[in-house]
């Protein structure tokens, strides 16, 4: 048993090393667009993992992800923007005092962004986590909308509808994949711990869990707040990645994209979330071709704006209608299975 554990650690280390080598290679050889897609994959995986913790493992149907992302994105951006740039940018009203001068290095800014999002998670969690099922979904959706409307209306903090521009593009492959691996590690450890079992018990039967003496509210709150933290981190990385944010960006579609990844990967499967994060991010970019003019021989088809999201939503419908457990269901990747793959093939030969 011990030897197996050791083997798994080594294999995981090797996998991380391979990823690092790949990133090193990618950073040197791929063009900006492809690197941007790789970055987006990492951010989307962080976001989807946090939602999977909340929804897939704890059974809290939360639609408030865009709100936490907005909080994280704004907090981080305000912390890493230089004071002079803020003064130049706020043309509606001058920035308010603490926000006008505060500054932090990137890593600290992301951490604070996550913590602020987590704090909002606690504040919103007290009223809404007592609700069940769809009511929780609609209440968290309401929360996200309120955040968006408020961000639009406090120009002294957020620069209102104009949004923030020229956010320093610190976020790169190393930051994004570093945070992605950290998120992955924390969530795997959490889910595999006894606390993770408690969460699954609440998800599967809340009444029974309560009868077993589980403080369901506290467990739900912990899971919700950890999810909110990582959603804030994801938002912060995203802000620095695309360098421009405004309140309109954090609408329901953003939550929907993350939800799509979680559902497609399989609720309650970390492996599924990672796989779906890669597939869907690439697919969403690749689908841009349907909106561009296509030339086949002498025939030129005009691109259709909006077609990308049509295809995307049809894909979601197909998944829900014909395979509602997602790619992986609740199954997970493990090294035994991976090695078995080779062994079996070897034996067959």
């Amino acid at each position: 048993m011990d030897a197996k554990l050791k083997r798994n650690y080594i294999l995981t280390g090797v996998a991380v090393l391979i990823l690092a080598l790949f990133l090193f290679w990618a950073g040197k050889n791929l063009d900006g667009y492809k690197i941007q897609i790789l970055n987006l994959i990492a951010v989307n995986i962080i976001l989807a993992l946090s939602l999977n913790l909340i929804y897939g493992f704890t059974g809290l149907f939360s639609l408030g992800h865009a709100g936490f992302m907005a909080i994280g994105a704004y907090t981080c951006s305000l912390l890493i923007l230089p004071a002079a740039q803020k003064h130049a940018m706020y043309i509606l009203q001058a920035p308010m005092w603490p926000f006008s001068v505060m500054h932090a290095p990137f890593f600290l800014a992301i951490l604070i962004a996550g913590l602020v999002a987590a704090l909002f998670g606690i504040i919103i969690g007290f009223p809404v986590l007592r609700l069940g099922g769809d009511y929780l979904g609609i209440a968290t959706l309401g929360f996200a909308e309120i955040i968006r409307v408020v961000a639009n209306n406090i120009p002294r903090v957020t620069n209102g509808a104009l949004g923030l521009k020229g956010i320093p593009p610190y976020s790169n492959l190393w930051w994004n994949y570093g945070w992605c691996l950290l998120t992955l590690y924390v969530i795997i450890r959490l889910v595999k711990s006894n606390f993770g079992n408690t969460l699954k018990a609440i998800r599967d039967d809340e009444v029974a869990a309560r009868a077993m003496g589980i403080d369901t509210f506290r467990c739900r709150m912990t899971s919700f707040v950890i999810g909110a933290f990582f959603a804030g981190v994801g938002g912060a990385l995203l802000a620095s990645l695309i360098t421009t944010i405004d309140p309109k960006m954090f609408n329901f579609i953003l939550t929907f994209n993350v939800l799509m990844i979680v559902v497609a990967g399989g609720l309650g499967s970390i492996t599924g979330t990672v796989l779906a994060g890669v597939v869907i991010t690439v697919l969403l970019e690749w689908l841009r071709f349907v909106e561009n003019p296509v030339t086949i021989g002498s025939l030129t088809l005009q691109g259709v704006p909006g077609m990308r999201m049509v295809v995307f939503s049809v894909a979601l419908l197909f998944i829900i209608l014909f395979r509602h457990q997602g790619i992986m269901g609740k199954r997970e990747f493990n090294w035994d299975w991976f090695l078995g793959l080779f062994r079996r093939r070897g034996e067959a030969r």
Partner: protein
Amino acid sequence: MSLAMFVQHLFNALTLGSLYALIAIGYTMVYGILRLINFAHGEIFMMGAYFVFWGVTLFHLPWPIAVIGAILVTSMAGIMVDRVAYKPLRNAPRISALISSIGVSFFLQNFAIVVFSAIPRAVQRPDWLVKVIVIDKIRILPLTLVFPVLSFILMMGLLYVVYRTKPGLGMRAISKDIETSRLMGVPVNRIIAITFGMGSALAAASGIMWALRYPQLQPVMGVIPGFKAFIAAVFGGIGSIQGAVIGGLVLGFIEIMIVAFLPTLAGYRDAFAFVLLIIILLIMPTGLMGEKLEDKV
């Protein structure tokens, strides 16, 4: 604020409230029967508005025919949505149908962008609806008189169907217990289709009036009214038609009156409904007239 101003706001609030109420009825009926938040309802509302203005501008139909035609087509669309996206999931976990409805909602929105284009369209309004009436300093648009009355007639019609006809009896039976109703010989799928059809027809009527009140069409026009109407339904007690009507009217009044009395809050207008929602869920989770749902063990 002068009395004349107040009366004008009152009529605006009544109009907005009755439009919310019409949408909210669709949410509450579907929720009452299937325990499903039909996220696609806002898009049905949007389709109703687009169909009428297609009928009028593209096919040069007279207004009454265009309106009736659009309502019929939209209610067919509502039934289609149920058939395609919800019916196969009747026995799946409830959350699957919810996600499916979000998918349908996005599909319809983006399909509308493809078909109608994302550019907002102006709406040509018939003169008699927008010629300002002046009664002793009070200036009101005729449509703020006509729309509440029309909505009221539609609601009465709906209540008649629900409480005085056989399909209505079926709806009420299904909302109590779907399995028992099936055993008692209620044609469950047909009744559900009728429910979707009627809810969609009311949403279409509301969408048409909305487009005449705020004369602009765009593919995402249904999202915010849809959410707000859902909140109205929760406020009134989800599952209760009378509750949805009261909820819609209250929400309309709150929105118009807060902006009228506290103009500095105008920017937060879209947030009122959501704040109201969270407050309601905290102090009265079953709404004004809702039945208490308990977790079955």
